[in-house]
């Protein structure tokens, strides 16, 4: 049902992670698109290659295994974590998608991933090629640990990323603001070439649509 491809990253003096790509070929491009629309899997970043209806799914749970340095001979690649197929798999190809193990708590799995991802990227930052998806993963990894962060939306203006972070507070908290801004600096260390504007919106509006446009993407919700 799945095609798996082993890829490893090369570093010097450090032990990288082994990465398994979980891929699935779709007969219909609409089914490939549906993967990214499943609400409880809003962490999926499905890349669609329209010529052969292939969707590479990078599912944000890391179950990675350290690999010996001696076996490495290929250049670094983008870190794209995936679910091993033993944890879950799609049970059908069509309109209805679901987990074979529905009792799996996706949120817990997601949380474990982001903790692991953040630690991994802090320990071996030079392994990772920069990409939009890594930037979004970084955003979520950094900000989801802050309890006052309710949701994160991302948009683009020209080549600039606009990040709208909705907060649960309705009174200003200076310590919180400094913490949020310190995260921006940390993220910029991994993505120094990305120009990003962060907006922190307190819980003083009833309708997010006053701020969020149609093209704005939700990348995290508590």
């Amino acid at each position: 049902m799945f095609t798996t491809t082993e890829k490893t990253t090369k570093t010097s003096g450090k032990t990288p992670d082994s990465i398994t790509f979980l891929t699935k070929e779709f007969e219909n491009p609409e089914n490939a698109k549906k993967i990214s629309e499943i609400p409880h899997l809003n962490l999926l970043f499905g890349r669609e290659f329209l010529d052969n209806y292939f969707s590479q799914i990078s599912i944000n749970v890391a179950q990675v295994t350290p690999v010996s340095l001696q076996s490495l001979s290929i250049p670094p690649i983008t870190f794209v974590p995936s679910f091993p197929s033993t944890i879950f798999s799609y049970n059908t190809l069509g309109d209805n998608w679901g987990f074979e193990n529905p009792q799996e708590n996706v949120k817990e799995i997601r949380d474990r991933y982001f903790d692991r991802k953040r630690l991994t990227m802090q320990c071996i930052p030079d392994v990772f090629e920069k990409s939009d998806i890594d930037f979004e993963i970084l955003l979520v990894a950094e900000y989801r640990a802050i309890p006052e962060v309710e949701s994160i939306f991302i948009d683009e203006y020209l080549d600039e990323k606009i990040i709208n972070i909705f907060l649960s507070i309705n009174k200003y908290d200076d310590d919180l603001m400094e913490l949020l801004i310190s995260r921006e600096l940390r993220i910029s260390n991994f993505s120094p070439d990305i120009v990003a504007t962060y907006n922190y919106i307190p819980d003083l509006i009833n309708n997010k649509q006053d701020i969020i446009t149609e093209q704005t993407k939700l990348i995290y919700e508590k």
Partner: protein
Amino acid sequence: MPSNADHIAQALHNEEFAVSLKTKLTYKDWLITVCFYSALHYIEAHFFNIPAIQHSITTIPKDPSTGKWQCSEHGWRMKLVQRNLPPNVYIHFKKLHANSTTARYLDTNKNALSSSYFSNQDALNAFDKDLQMIKKELGL
């Protein structure tokens, strides 16, 4: 393009106005906002003395084919602050910007004024803590 002296003069002008707003705190939102604009000019004054920058607007990356800016003026300025100035400047300048935006543009409809989001001390800190820290880090 404004010179270093022009920016310093504007920064001081804004700072004097901020001092007057501190006395009554009726307009906390504008105190925070004026502190932001004062800080902005102090930073642009500092940029003027960096040959590779001189002014944030003149260094905004452009699309090579269209000649159009690739990002906003504000976004690029924050990137320059991040790359060229101490982290404390970024943190405090970003705070002033974020808070002035909240104070000015947040259209509250939860029966609260945006200016009630900030306490009197929060507004005073914009001047006494954030603006003064930026000046200190820039050697002003």
